[in-house]
C-alpha cells in the first residue's frame, strides 16, 4: 500500500535522476508549457493540505500553491496537488515530479545545504510539541520518562525528540511509522502514551482522534520548526517567483491589501501598495518572468497571509490556532517579509 507506493515512487524518482538529461528548460517555462503547477503536499493534515469529501483541496500549504498558480496563470485552480510522504518528498522535488514542495517541511541547515533544495521562506513558525491522554495525568514533558512515543519516521521530529530526551536524561520508546496518519491512529488506540509532531500538527491531528477532548497538548514547545515551501536548487528565476509570492502575501497583510479591497487599492496613493500590486512598475523587470501585476493576481484570487491563515487554521476553524508567532512583526509576531522595492 502506501509504503510500497512510496518505494515505487522513490525508485521512479531515482530512475528519473538517472535517466533525465542534465540540461533542461527553466522550471517556469516547463510549468507554463504544462499549463499546470505540480504542488507536492502532505494531503492528510487538516488545515495545511487535505481534500474534503468532494475532492476540493484546502489548507495553508494548498493556498500558497494556489497563489503561485494565480501569479503564473491568473487562475488559482491550475494546480495539481500531489500527495507525497515524508520519505518521498525530497526525491520527488529533486527529480522534477513536483515544482514546489509545500508540505509542512522544516527548514534546516542540512536540507538546505546537502540535498539540493532551496527553501523559499517561512510560511508557518512552528515548534515541536507533545500530546498525551488526559487520563495519564501528565502536565509536563518532564513527566514522560519511560513513555512510548508514536512518531513519524524520517522527520526532524524524530531527531528533536531524541535530542531532548537525551539532554534531560530521560528514556523513551519510539514507535515510528511511515505516515503521520498511522502514527496518530496507533496513538489513538492507546499503544503509545504520547504523540509528538509540530504543535500545529498536534492541533490538526487532535480533531481527527476518536475523542478529541480526552487529549491534552503539553505546554512545552521543544524546538524551532520553521515550516516553508521548498523548490529545486539551481533555478534562480523559479526560486525568486516562489519566494516573492510568499513575501507578497505577507506584505499585503501588512499593507492592509486583501482579496476584497485589492481592486480599490489600485487607486491607493501609498507607494508601497502601488509597487506591490504593479501599479508602479519602477522596480519591475522582465527578468522576474511574470507580468508586473503578478502579486495583484495572487492577492485577488487567493488572499493575503492573514486571510489565508484565518480561513484554514485560525480561531474560527476546527484547528482554532491563534496567530502567536505567526503574527506580523508590527503586531509583535515573527512574520517579516523584505520590502518590495
Amino acid at each position: 500500500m502506501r509504503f510500497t507506493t512510496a518505494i515505487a515512487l522513490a525508485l521512479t524518482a531515482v530512475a528519473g535522476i538517472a535517466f533525465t538529461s542534465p540540461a533542461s528548460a527553466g522550471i517556469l517555462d516547463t510549468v507554463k508549457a504544462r499549463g499546470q503547477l505540480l504542488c507536492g503536499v502532505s494531503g492528510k493534515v487538516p488545515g495545511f493540505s487535505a481534500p474534503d469529501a468532494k475532492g476540493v483541496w484546502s489548507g495553508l500549504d494548498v493556498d500558497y500553491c494556489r497563489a503561485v498558480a494565480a501569479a503564473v496563470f491568473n487562475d488559482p485552480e491550475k494546480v495539481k496537488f500531489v500527495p507525497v510522504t515524508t520519505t518521498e518528498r525530497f526525491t520527488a522535488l529533486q527529480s522534477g515530479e513536483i515544482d514546489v514542495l509545500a508540505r509542512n517541511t522544516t527548514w534546516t541547515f542540512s536540507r538546505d545545504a546537502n540535498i539540493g533544495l532551496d527553501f523559499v521562506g517561512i510560511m508557518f513558525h512552528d515548534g515541536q510539541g507533545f500530546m498525551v491522554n488526559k487520563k495519564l495525568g501528565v502536565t509536563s514533558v518532564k513527566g514522560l520518562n519511560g513513555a512510548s512515543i508514536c512518531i513519524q519516521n524520517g522527520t526532524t521530529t524524530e531527531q528533536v525528540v531524541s535530542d531532548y530526551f537525551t539532554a534531560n536524561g530521560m528514556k523513551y520508546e519510539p514507535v515510528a511509522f511511515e505516515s503521520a496518519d498511522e502514527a496518530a491512529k496507533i496513538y489513538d488506540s492507546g499503544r503509545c502514551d504520547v504523540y509528538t509532531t509540530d504543535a500545529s500538527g498536534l492541533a490538526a491531528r487532535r480533531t481527527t482522534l476518536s475523542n478529541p477532548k480526552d487529549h491534552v497538548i503539553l505546554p512545552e514547545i521543544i524546538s524551532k520548526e520553521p515550516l516553508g515551501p521548498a523548490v529545486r536548487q539551481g533555478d534562480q528565476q523559479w526560486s525568486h517567483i516562489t519566494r516573492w509570492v510568499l513575501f507578497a502575501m505577507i506584505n499585503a497583510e501588512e499593507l492592509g491589501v486583501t482579496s476584497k479591497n485589492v481592486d480599490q487599492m489600485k487607486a491607493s496613493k501609498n507607494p508601497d501598495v502601488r509597487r506591490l500590486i504593479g501599479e508602479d512598475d519602477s522596480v519591475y523587470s522582465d527578468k522576474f518572468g511574470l507580468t508586473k501585476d503578478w502579486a495583484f493576481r495572487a492577492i485577488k484570487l487567493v488572499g493575503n497571509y492573514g486571510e489565508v491563515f484565518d480561513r484554514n487554521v485560525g480561531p474560527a476553524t476546527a484547528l482554532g490556532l491563534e496567530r502567536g508567532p505567526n503574527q506580523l512583526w508590527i503586531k509583535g509576531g515573527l512574520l517579516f517579509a523584505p520590502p518590495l522595492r
Partner: protein
Amino acid sequence: MPFSRYLRDRKTRGYAIQAVVLAVILLGGTWLILNAAENLRRAGIASGFAFLDKPAGFEISFKLIDFSARSTYGRAFFVGLTNTLLVASLGIVFATVLGFVVGVARLSRNWLLSRLAAAYIGTIRNIPLMLQLMFWYIAMLTPLPLPRNALNLADLFFLSNRGLFMPRPAPLDDFWPVAAAIVAGLAAAIAYALWTRGHWRRTGRRLPLLWPVLALVVLPAAVVRLIGGPALDFDIPKLAGFNFAGGIRIPPEFLALWLALTLYSGGFIAETVRAGINAVAHGQVEAARALGLPAGPTMRRIVIPQAMRVIIPPMTSQYLNLLKNSSLAVIVGFPDLVAVFAGSTLNQTGQSIETLSITMAVFLTISLAISALMNWYNRRVALVER
C-alpha cells in the same frame, strides 16, 4: 580460415553476439551511473557514502546491537539488518514447522483435522499479507488493555498493548555446575541412544529408550541442584510508571510482523508439503505396508525423504518470499532494514540513490545466500542415479 568462414561459423557468431550484448549492457550501466552522478552534482545534491559515518540523531526502539542517537547511520544500517534477519529467520523456522504440521494434517484421514487444515490454508493463502498484518496489529494487538490492566498469566506473563512480557532467567552462582551436569547428562543420553540403535541392528531387539534418556538428563542435574543452591532466578516483569520494567519484552510490532509472516508463509508451505507427499508414488506406501512397517515409520522413513526432493525447490521460493515480505514491517512500525535505512536514513540524509541501492543489494545478497543454501541441501537429498 578466411574471415567470411568465421562469420558463418555458428559458434563464433554466438560468441560475437554475446560479446556485443554484454558490451551494450555494461556501457548502458556506466552511462546511467555517470549521468546520475552528473545530475546529482548539478542539482547540488550530496552524493557518496560519507553519511554512513555521521551520527544518525534518531533512536531505534527494537535493537539487537547497541544503538543510541549518537551512533552512526552505518550502525543504524546494522540495527535494521539484524532486525530483518531476526524476524525473517524466526519466521522461516516457525513457518516451516507449522507448514509441515498443517500439510500432513491436511492429508490426515481424520475428517475434522484435515478440514481444519484445509480451512486454514484456504483462508490464509487468499487474503493479502498486508491486510493480515494490519489485522494482527491494529485489530488484535493494539486494542489489548493498557499495562496496568494487562492480561495476566500466573503473575509471570503479561500481555498488554505494550507487548508480551515474560520472566527473564538470570543465572545465579550455582548455575554453572547445574548447567554442566545437564550437558553431561545430555551427552550420556545421546551415547546411550546411539548404542541402543547399534544393539537393535545387531540383535534385532529394541531396548527401552524414553525412560533411560530422561533419567540420564534429569538425575545428574537434580543431584547437583540438591547439593548446591538454586541455579536460576527469574527477573519477573513488574508494573512501573507507564509500563512494565524487567523481564523480557516482545513489542507488539514484532509480534504482529512475526505472526503474520509465519501464518502466511505457513499456509503456502503446507500446500508445498502436501504436494510433495502426494507426489510420492503410492506403491512406495503399499510396499512399506506389505513389509509390515507401521504408519509412523512409513511416513518418516519412506514418504518424507522422497517428498523432500519435490518440496525443497518451491520451499526455497517460500523462504525468499518471507524474507522480502518482512519489508512490510514499516506498516506496523517495526524498525526493519527498510524502515530504518530506506526510511529514516534516506529521509534524514536525502541520499536516496545510495540508501536504496544499499538496501536492494542487501536483500539480493540474503536472497542469494538462502538460495545457495537450499540448492546445496537440494543436491544432498536429490535422487542419485546409479
